[in-house]
């Protein structure tokens, strides 16, 4: 199955998606990749290997805590959201909603760029 990479405007989305998924429960990298595919119906398709550098960066800034644990008989690094990560997630969600509303206003607005009226 061919995997299409997502366009550049999705920069920052992997971080938001990872934080949100880990807010639900701790997961390891492979679980996260599958969870993203399942949750988005494979619309979001990140290079699977790219998940790890993002996880490591989030871990380094204290948003996540990684710990090697035995899961289903195998040793894996399981990531958990920290209190700092929850605060970061709140900020990212708010920023995403602002962007989403702004882009929708443009997409649905008239030819002069005025917001669409309902």
């Amino acid at each position, binding site marked *: 199955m061919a995997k299409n990479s997502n366009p550049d405007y999705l920069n920052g989305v992997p971080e938001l998606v990872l934080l949100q998924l880990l807010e639900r429960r701790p997961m390891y990298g492979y679980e996260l990749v599958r969870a993203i595919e399942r949750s988005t119906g494979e619309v979001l398709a990140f290079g699977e290997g790219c998940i790890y550098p993002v996880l490591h960066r989030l*871990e380094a800034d204290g948003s996540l805590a990684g710990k090697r644990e035995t899961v289903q008989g195998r*040793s894996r690094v399981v990531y958990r959201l920290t209190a700092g990560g929850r605060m970061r997630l709140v900020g990212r969600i708010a920023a995403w909603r602002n962007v989403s509303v702004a882009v929708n206003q443009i997409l649905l607005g008239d030819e002069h760029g005025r917001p669409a009226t309902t």
Partner: protein
Amino acid sequence: MDDQQRLEALRAELASRGLSRAYIERLVAELDDHIADLANHLLNPASHLERNLDMSAARKPDYFVDNLGERIGTPTQLAIFAAEQYRARSFLGRHPILTFVMAPLPVFAALCLTYYLVVALPILAFVYLAEHVLGWPFAIEKHPWFGCGVLTFFSCDLVVLAPITTAWLLSRLAIRNAVNWRWPTVACALLAAVVAMVRFSWNLHPGPHQNGVFTIGFNVGSSAQWILLDWLPKFGLALAIGLALVWRARRPGDAQNSDGPATISTLPAA
């Protein structure tokens, strides 16, 4: 290229970008786990019914190997992305222009002052104590060796100690954060250009009833003779010292022995 060759290639790509050994080993270990999970996933589709794959093809080892690069990413793509994320962890990795172009001169000035204060303050305290507490007459003008020592140190501080410390500090920071070696090189060139313009002179005993003179400043000429015979040799020497520090910092052994972030190095082994 099989998965182990791919991981070895990734390891080499990451090392060439200056990432720490701890980070490389961790990333490769997690990708190895991921590939094992993926292989299990593709070769045992019954355990992953949610996947929308051509299962007959997925059972073939060739399919797995052929699709690995597509799914995981090529070693080069992964290494580029991992290096970007690694740099994004630190302020200086995110702002190399600020750190390596704008900050070197203020850092240099701060280090000059720090070195001077660290040496001068104890000496001044000693002189003060000698005169006012112990009652020893300590007329500085009667001790030319004292003035010479202080001024020699101050001059060395300005053109040797502080610039070398600044260059060393920036080189180490760059390597520890996997910042491209060109950035500390730019910083060293800036420092060398400024240090090559520093001028100082002193005359402690110009004559009877005359005070000693110490002058310090920047000599900026515009003639070709000044540039070629005065500034350029000093700039070249200072730059060579700076480049030697950068080169030393980016030796593979040094870079790979630098510690990764604590969160990585403290992870329990598998």
